[in-house]
């Protein structure tokens, strides 16, 4: 061998791996460390892109687990509106490593959750998941009760799953200056009231992101010795930035840091892996084909292509049969749901019909008729 590049496979060379291929034929972007099969118990959390993972897994009959499915019998629409089944527990989006770390501390240790609530027009919103309850909770007590279920679900998910998929979304966040606790969104946007004296902006740097993710992984691995963590980075650009930069450069800054954190973690942790959905959607090789006109929303075909690569690369690595995409649109990951209306309006049996007839005939017998 005259030099190290001489015998490398073609996917290590830009010309053969990218330039000479149709973008949709670019393959082998992921070299998975761990097998994920249909029996693997998978949970998902993180930024909004993570929900696509869950849908794709369910559509292919993988074992995606919902640890907080809500009451039995909810319709798909009710589940969606109340944020059941979006992720494996009802946290709503977890955008930052710090938020994930916070949730895990509250769920897996004895550390108390701050009792701060946001009030608006007599309704109460959870600062750490303000969007999960349309219209808010009726009281702080109800909010706390609901949150306790979510914390229990997170703990059960970490302890009961084989693979925890986490999609990192943002580095920017808003915190309570006194306690340091991080909010899910800026106070005053979805709910709450912004107070510059109380609330502060933070744009986490690499070291802070690494520290939070490392601590989060440590908590999870302690709770479950078999757990694997699959990291992804959301390809969805920032809606807005408070960093003072242009939103486009702020997006690059944020995503670059998260992407670097993912690689660093994979280097350091044998039980962590990174799946490059971010690259598949955002890389110039794909020429923005998977973005909608606003250059932000990811199109369904983009999600589908990402997930095809996921299953194809798994098959390539472990010799499994590649899982074909579903023919029908992905169903919501709901348990067996019986529409409430069906429960409320039963079909009449023959005997019941007969009794109904008798009642009417008795009332409207010919000698009584004048209605």
């Amino acid at each position, binding site marked *: 061998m005259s030099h190290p590049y001489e015998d490398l496979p073609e996917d290590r060379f830009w010309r053969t791996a990218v330039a000479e291929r149709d973008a949709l034929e670019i393959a082998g972007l992921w070299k998975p460390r761990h097998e994920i099969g249909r029996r693997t118990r998978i949970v998902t959390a993180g930024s909004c892109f993570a929900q696509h993972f869950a849908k794709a897994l369910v559509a292919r009959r993988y074992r995606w687990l919902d640890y*907080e*499915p*809500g*009451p*039995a*019998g*909810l*319709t798909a629409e*009710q589940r969606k*509106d*109340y944020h059941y089944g979006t992720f494996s527990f009802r946290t709503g989006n977890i955008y930052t490593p710090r938020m994930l770390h916070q949730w895990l501390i509250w769920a897996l240790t004895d550390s108390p959750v701050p009792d701060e609530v946001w009030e608006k027009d007599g309704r109460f919103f959870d600062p750490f998941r303000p969007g999960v*309850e*349309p*219209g*808010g*909770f*009726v009281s702080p007590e*109800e909010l706390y*009760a*609901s949150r*306790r*279920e979510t914390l229990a679900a997170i703990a059960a998910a970490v302890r009961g799953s084989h693979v925890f998929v986490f999609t990192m979304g943002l580095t920017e966040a808003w915190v309570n200056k006194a306690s340091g606790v991080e909010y899910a969104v800026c106070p005053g946007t979805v709910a709450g009231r912004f107070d510059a004296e109380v609330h502060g902006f933070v744009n986490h740097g690499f070291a802070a992101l690494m520290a939070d993710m490392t601590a989060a992984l440590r908590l999870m691995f302690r709770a479950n010795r078999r757990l694997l963590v699959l990291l992804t980075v959301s390809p969805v650009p920032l809606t807005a930035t408070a960093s003072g930069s242009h939103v486009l450069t702020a997006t690059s800054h944020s995503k670059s840091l998260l992407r670097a954190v993912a690689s660093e973690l994979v280097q350091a942790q044998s039980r962590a892996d990174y799946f490059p959905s971010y690259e598949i959607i955002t890389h110039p090789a794909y020429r923005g084909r998977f973005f909608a006109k606003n250059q932000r929303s990811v199109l369904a075909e983009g999600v589908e292509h990402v997930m095809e690569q996921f299953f194809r690369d798994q098959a390539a690595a472990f010799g499994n049969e590649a899982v074909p995409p579903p023919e029908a649109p992905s169903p919501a990951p709901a348990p067996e749901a019986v*529409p*409430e*209306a069906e*429960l*409320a*309006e*039963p079909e*009449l049996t023959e*005997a*019941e*019909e007969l*009794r*109904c*007839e008798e*009642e*009417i005939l*008795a*009332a*409207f017998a010919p000698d*009584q*008729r*004048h*209605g």
Partner: protein
Amino acid sequence: MAEGPPRFCIFGDSHYACLKQAEVQGLVDVSGVDLEYWGHVGGRFRYLEFRDGAIRPVDDFTAMRFAKFNAKGRTTLPAADFDVILVMGARVYVWRMFLSLLRALTEGPFVSRGLQRRLLADALRGQSGYRLARGLAETGTAQVLLAPIAYYTGDAVRAATFFTPAIEALIPDRVPEFWSVLAETAAEDGIRLLRQPEETVVQGMFTDEAYAVAGHVAKKDYEHHNAAYGAVILSRVMDMVRTVPRRDPADRIAAPDGDGQDEAGRGHDA
């Protein structure tokens, strides 16, 4: 405003029979109104639709069945032909809806008040009979009242087979709230919901055997109720109906005020 008594129609499935029986047996004064009945067994309700301002059977057989029990032989029910329409029973069930929610509340997982409200509202609006009532109300012509199917006939023994102690403990607080949610939901749709009157309720969510049809145990008929029950419902409605002016055909009515609860007599939870 037109001359003459208000035109009042009672529309329903077999549950409207007890109102007719109350009238025939003279248990309630129905004077001062122009009263008509239009209805048939619940099984025929799947062949009804609301279209062009009227409830219409989708086939001739169903049309004839409904016409048979109407003094004028009506094959359709146009809302504009009446000043008040009472939708009685009409396959609008609340008992199972309430029990399902009570079970969820006692067995978990957690159900927020907001979700409870949503479940009740969706369950009400999802019922075919309710959609017919909503269609009538949306015409803005007749005032529409709705009396859902009463609780099943029961007693302490029967209650024990359906209600756990935890459910029994919740009923006094929660069931009145459920009714309020249904009333508010109905009011949003222009319908005045009539709660089941308190004096007819036993064990929290059963109808007193005094209002059962004759021989209900032998017939295993825990669903239908007798003329006395019809009289309780009708008497609450009649005072209100008499005050409604006979509408000129061109007039429309305003949506009901407040939460749409039974003004004539609040239910058992008032």
